[in-house]
């Protein structure tokens, strides 16, 4: 190790000479300041005093510059300490002769290896997660935090006309589902989705992002007393409270910030599978009821019906 640190170019002789040159330089500098501090000594005449002072000052400055020159000459001889050690100056720790008492160097190497590995694995993980960008959480990991706010405004300020078009297209896609769009509070749209004669869903949108959904029974009132959509109260029936919970889960599942219209469409496709809420038995246990509730869960990919406790 020592060889690596003190490369052959280093002249030990010059090294010791340089150290003594530094000492000489320091003493001569000290003498300059001593001379300045003492000022003009008592001499017979004023002229003599000045002359003596200037001569002494000049001489000490000369010796400083001489010593400095000497140091510079020696420093060239010493040569530069090698910089090609992979750990730079921390490599010098390996010179510590008492390894047993201060195992700093080996610890340092281990920490270095560990952090290297961590970085490698984190890189792999972020690559994998980015491929499945349907999920909101995955996107947050992949895209740096700084980039997100920049990307959002573009999809947040879609013209209302575009939102209307997307909703209209979805409305036409599913005959058993009717969608009523209204804008009671400015530009944000609210949808009242009626699915067959099974249920009604209130969907609160922000541009094309779905902010909130509430599922209620077909025969339940979805309006407040003053005739507005009631977006706060929940259903009186346990089934629809459960379905509301699942719909909120679905909102978090279907996320694709670059293509908000796809998100809305996949959510509606998923929602449509509730047309058989009371008719489909659980795909796992084969029964209709569990704790008095029908299968309220619909798989996100296959749209199969499951009881809440029967899905995995």
């Amino acid at each position, binding site marked *: 190790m020592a060889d690596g640190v003190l490369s052959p170019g280093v002249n030990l002789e010059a090294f010791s000479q340089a150290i003594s040159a530094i000492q000489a330089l320091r003493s001569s500098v000290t003498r300059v300041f001593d001379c300045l501090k003492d000022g003009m000594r008592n001499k017979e005449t004023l002229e003599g005093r000045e002359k003596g002072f200037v001569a002494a000052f000049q001489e000490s400055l000369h010796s400083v510059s001489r010593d400095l020159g000497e140091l510079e000459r020696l420093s060239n001889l010493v040569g530069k300490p090698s910089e090609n050690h992979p750990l730079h100056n921390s490599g010098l720790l390996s010179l510590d002769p008492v390894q047993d008492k201060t195992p700093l160097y080996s610890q340092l190497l281990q920490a270095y290896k560990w952090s290297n590995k961590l970085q490698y694995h984190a890189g792999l993980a972020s690559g994998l997660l980015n491929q499945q960008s349907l999920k909101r959480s995955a996107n947050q990991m992949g895209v740096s935090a700084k980039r997100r706010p920049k990307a959002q405004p573009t999809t947040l300020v879609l013209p209302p006309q575009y939102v209307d078009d997307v909703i209209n297209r979805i409305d036409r896609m599913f005959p058993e589902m009717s969608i009523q769009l209204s804008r009671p509070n400015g530009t944000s749209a609210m949808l009242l989705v009626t699915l067959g*004669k099974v249920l009604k869903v209130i969907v609160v949108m922000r541009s094309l992002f779905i902010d909130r959904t509430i599922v209620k029974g077909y025969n339940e009132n979805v309006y407040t007393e003053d005739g507005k959509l009631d977006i706060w109260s929940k259903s009186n029936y346990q089934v629809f409270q459960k379905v509301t919970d699942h719909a909120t889960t679905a909102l978090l599942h279907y996320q694709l910030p670059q293509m908000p219209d796809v998100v809305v469409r996949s959510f509606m496709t998923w929602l449509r599978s509730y047309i058989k809420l009371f*008719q489909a038995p659980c795909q796992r246990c084969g*029964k209709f*009821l569990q704790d008095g509730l029908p299968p309220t869960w619909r798989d996100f990919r296959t749209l199969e019906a499951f009881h809440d406790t029967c899905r995995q």
Partner: protein
Amino acid sequence: NVSQVPVAEGKSVQQTVELLTRKLEVLGAEKQGTFCVDCETYHTAAATIGTQGQTGKLMYVMHNSEYPLSCFALFESGPCLIADANFDILMVKLKGFFQNAKANKIETRGTRYQYCDFLVKVGTVTMGPSARGISVEVEYCPCVIANDCWSLLMEFMQSFMGSHAPGLPSVFGTKHDSIYSPSDTMVQYMELFNKIRKQQQVPVAGMR
């Protein structure tokens, strides 16, 4: 949403009701007070039969505690009229056309249970002073299309009635996928009451 279940057991009516309610309570159903459905029979008066050449029809006037402000008037196979509760007073005025067959008054009283979104009403059917049978009404409130949730209802009824769970009520067959209404419940009660009245003439073994 609703189906009526006549239960004639080997035991007394009282015992069977107790057995049923105990099973419901074990399931986790909560007691929610009582209920009552009554039915009065009216004959069309002789005067109208002759002039219009019709055979005598029976009309039933029913009340259901679930709809305290309403009164239901039904013909055996015909339309169902839903009126305000003071319809009874009108019937008194129409004495000339409809005559009340007082002896035929029949009613069912019992306890109302709730289990999740199910409403279960177990009642004892009485005609005059004697208990004639048991009625069980099961309603699944969230669903408005009766046929949609029939298999689900069936599974629930089997869970506490076992093999006595009924077949598909005839009202369901004609309804297809229209919305269930209170009058459908009343039609089912009417059919049940008629069945129980007939049992009176041919006493079933075990009916005490």
